[in-house]
């Protein structure tokens, strides 16, 4: 167990690599109850979200979910979140654990007459069940990604969200805090492998999902971070002018995925020759090589470019690749 954002979290149950493989080949469950949840409600809830988050909330119908960013004036990222539209005037926003208070304060400060932002994190637990056999093991039908429905799983009331952080098919199940233990046991009884934070990190890195605090943050703008696709530049939100400008002129640095071409494991903070820096690095259990994400000057950002990572004083070659780093053979 390790402390993480005020929570005691398991890094692993059986082992990072075996848990990782379980998610890629069968199904794994992660207790991600540490993540925060905000509820935004009221006749102007839509206006508040449109003005503070980067994506176009008008594309979100009740029952659907959307990846979005809370942005700063300079286009930096306060947090990356998923917005669920519960009904006409009510939204549920899942935020990163370590940003829960900052996000709540940020949105509270910008509240409009007729919108109410509440931190409801302590009321909910969140279990992510991910993998090619996740739905089968839970007895769920295939669903459209980024939608949700309310239902019962082994007698527990759940919000079934078709979202995840592993690149695999699966769901994230939100339930009332007091039901979490019962839901966890029910999922394990269905033959799903319990997985810790370690595997969650290697899984998301293989498919190049950025981690806030490592790869994205207020100090890097959303365009440089490769999240322009989550910014509706035709709408008005905090920092949009700066982001339009960056999009127009092209960022000076870019977040790129890379694979080591020499034996070594890149780690966060390692310099990349030419002025870059590793923001996330690990060993890929599926590819059996060192992989990472890092910011490099735009000239070095093209797939196929050779990089040199400073691994504790040793120069080791790497290559910029296209996203995702790992893709299932079809």
């Amino acid at each position: 167990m390790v402390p993480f954002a005020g929570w005691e979290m398991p890094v692993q149950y059986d082992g990072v690599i075996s848990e990782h493989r379980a998610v890629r080949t069968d199904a794994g469950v992660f207790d991600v109850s540490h993540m925060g949840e905000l509820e935004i409600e009221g006749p102007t809830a839509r206006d508040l979200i449109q003005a503070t988050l980067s994506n176009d909330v008008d594309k979100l119908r009740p029952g659907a979910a959307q990846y979005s960013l809370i942005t700063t004036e300079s286009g930096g990222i306060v947090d990356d979140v998923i917005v669920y539209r519960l009904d006409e005037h009510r939204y549920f926003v899942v935020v990163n654990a370590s940003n829960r208070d900052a996000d709540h304060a940020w949105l509270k400060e910008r509240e409009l007459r007729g919108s109410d932002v509440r931190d409801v994190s302590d009321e909910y637990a969140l279990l992510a069940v991910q993998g090619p056999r996740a739905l089968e093991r839970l007895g769920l039908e295939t669903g459209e990604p980024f939608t949700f429905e309310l239902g019962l799983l082994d007698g527990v009331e759940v919000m079934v969200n078709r979202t995840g952080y592993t690149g695999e098919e699966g769901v994230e199940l939100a339930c009332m805090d007091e039901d979490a233990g019962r839901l966890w046991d029910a999922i394990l009884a269905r033959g799903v492998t319990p997985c810790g934070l370690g595997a969650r990190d290697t899984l998301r890195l293989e498919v190049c999902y950025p981690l806030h605090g490592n790869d994205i943050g207020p100090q890097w703008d959303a365009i440089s971070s490769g999240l322009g696709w989550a910014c509706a530049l035709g709408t008005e939100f905090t920092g949009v002018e700066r982001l339009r400008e960056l999009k127009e002129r092209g960022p000076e640095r870019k977040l790129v995925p890379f694979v080591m071409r020499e034996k070594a494991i890149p780690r966060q903070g390692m310099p990349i020759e030419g002025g870059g820096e590793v923001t996330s690095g690990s060993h890929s259990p599926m590819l059996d090589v060192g992989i990472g994400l890092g910011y490099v000057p735009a000239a070095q950002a093209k797939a196929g470019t050779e990089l040199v990572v400073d691994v504790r004083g040793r120069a080791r070659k790497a290559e910029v690749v296209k996203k995702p780093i790992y893709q299932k053979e079809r």
Partner: protein
Amino acid sequence: MAASESYPDDLLYHPEHDWARIDGDEAVLGVTWYAQDALGELVHYEPPDVGSTVSKDTSYGEVESVKAVSDLISPLSGEVLEVNRTVVDAPETVNDDPYGDGWLIRIRLSSAEERDQLLDVAAYRKVLEDA
């Protein structure tokens, strides 16, 4: 398959969880069951160059698991005669067999008397109990 916990009594130990098997003026070095268990499944072994020298109590290389990096502390001083390439290619060999196929380097001893400063198995087990 991860090995089960054991500490052979024919080895000498260093409190940083390294072992030495001395044979004449040579020694084979590795890490103990405790060390590999604490690190988890190893995914990288950064060995020293053959012909380089290693010094007692200092780092001669690194091993890494998915989440952690650990220096390899040499229990003895000498010249590196051989690096275990099996572990370079398949670092998890250390988890499977830390005292056998998972050895790390073979050295020629430069200061044979250093062995007197190492721990026998009973003393090393005491280190583990106090950890």
